[in-house]
């Protein structure tokens, strides 16, 4: 097999989401370079070994693993603590969906109690609520006047600062949310409805103004003089 395929094989393994079987690699190469391309599963196997030798020689931080009937790239275990640190940081960094949801509900419905929050979310929210309190994104503003006098939760100035809002009233209004998040069909439909209304109105006005000087119908019969030079295709 031509060794130029080493690089192609490397690219295919690198970009594959799942362990890629040698047969898939061969399929791709034959599809693009012709069915007569000479390449066997053994060739692929040899390429992978050669790539791994090169990684070793060059001190690369990764290697190709042979698992589940296929090949995948992975970083070497030597650096696993760095990689682990980073992925932990990443989970930390993304406000988890649960926390985000909780925060959103408090932002819009504040002040509200934990039972109210939980009735909307449908799950126990002790943990997320505590995290948000710890992060100073929400705080306790007092007690509700209802039975049991549960604590009331509100968002903090830290929350406003983070989202670049001056006051809590600056949060997108339900109407604006609707406008932004409308599903596509609905949006198109609305656009259409609005426009057909405008169309009629504007048209009537236009017609009136222009009828005398512009004779549309006769002008639609197009002239031919300058057309040739403009031809596209």
């Amino acid at each position, binding site marked *: 097999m031509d060794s130029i395929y080493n690089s192609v094989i490397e690219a295919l393994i690198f970009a594959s989401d799942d362990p890629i079987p040698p047969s898939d690699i061969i399929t791709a190469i034959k599809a693009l370079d012709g069915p007569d391309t000479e390449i066997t599963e053994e060739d692929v196997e040899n390429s992978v070994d050669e790539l791994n030798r090169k990684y070793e020689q060059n001190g690369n931080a990764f290697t190709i693993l042979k698992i589940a009937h296929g090949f995948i790239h992975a970083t070497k275990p030597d650096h696993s603590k760095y990689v682990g640190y980073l992925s932990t940081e990443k989970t930390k960094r993304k406000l988890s969906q649960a926390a985000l949801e909780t925060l959103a509900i408090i932002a819009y419905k504040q002040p509200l109690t934990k039972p109210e929050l939980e009735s909307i979310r449908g799950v126990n929210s002790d943990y997320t609520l505590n*995290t948000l309190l710890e992060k100073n994104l929400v705080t306790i503003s007092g007690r509700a006047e209802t039975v049991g006098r549960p604590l009331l939760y509100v968002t903090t100035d830290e929350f406003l600062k983070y989202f670049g*809002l001056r006051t809590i009233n600056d949060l997108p209004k339900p109407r604006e949310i609707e406008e932004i998040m409308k599903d596509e069909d609905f949006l198109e439909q609305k656009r259409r409805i609005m426009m057909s209304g405008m*169309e009629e109105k*504007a048209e009537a006005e236009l017609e009136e103004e222009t009828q005398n000087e512009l004779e549309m119908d006769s002008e639609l019969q197009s002239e031919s003089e300058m057309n040739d030079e403009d031809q596209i295709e």
Partner: protein
Amino acid sequence: MYRIRLHEFEGPLDLLLFFIKRDELDIYDIPISRITKEFITYLHLLEQLDLEVAGDFILMAATLMQIKVKMLLPKELDEKGEEIDPRADLVKALLEYKRYKEMSEEMSLMESNMRKYNYRGNLDQDPKETLNDYEVLLKNITIYDLIKAFKKALLDRPAEPVHQIKKWNVTIDEQMTYISTRISEKGSVSFLELMIEMRDRIRIVVTFIAMLEMVKAGTIGLRESVTLNDFVIYGLNNG
């Protein structure tokens, strides 16, 4: 001759630029009658083809007509006593639009270029030591994420298990009593919250009628809620 695909034009400015280019017109001295005529001809063409003419195009047609009329009238003067060209705003808009349109072409090339790069798959395979101090931190979360989460929370709102014996024969009186009870708990109740507890349609309808009855009788009041499509039902003292 030109075969114009109607979808090619992103808007009225795009169409005007097309006319200007095609006929090699001076953008600073646009023959306004001519271009108005062309523009309107195009709109009528759309009509003839039974295609929807967007409102933005109609608006531009009206603007062009207005400029055309102004061209015939004595020129207005600015503070320095110089004549104001009625076309000035249009020219400015055309140039600005063209500027970004050019950049969008540039960006289209960048897009094509980047599509040739492929990022790594199967990242999960990398060995990593897990560190267990999970905590939540805000980064790269925007208002948009927040409102998306809010909308999702409302959509996913679970149907709460109702701890009451199901009665199929619901009466308005019963539901009026029920609403009163609910209001007396907290002073008010959200309409959605109230409805979400109803499993069957008849109960919802009857409750709704009960609610209207109570509003009419002045025993409860309704006010807007911060939540979309919801309102708050609260008790009135005279009730």
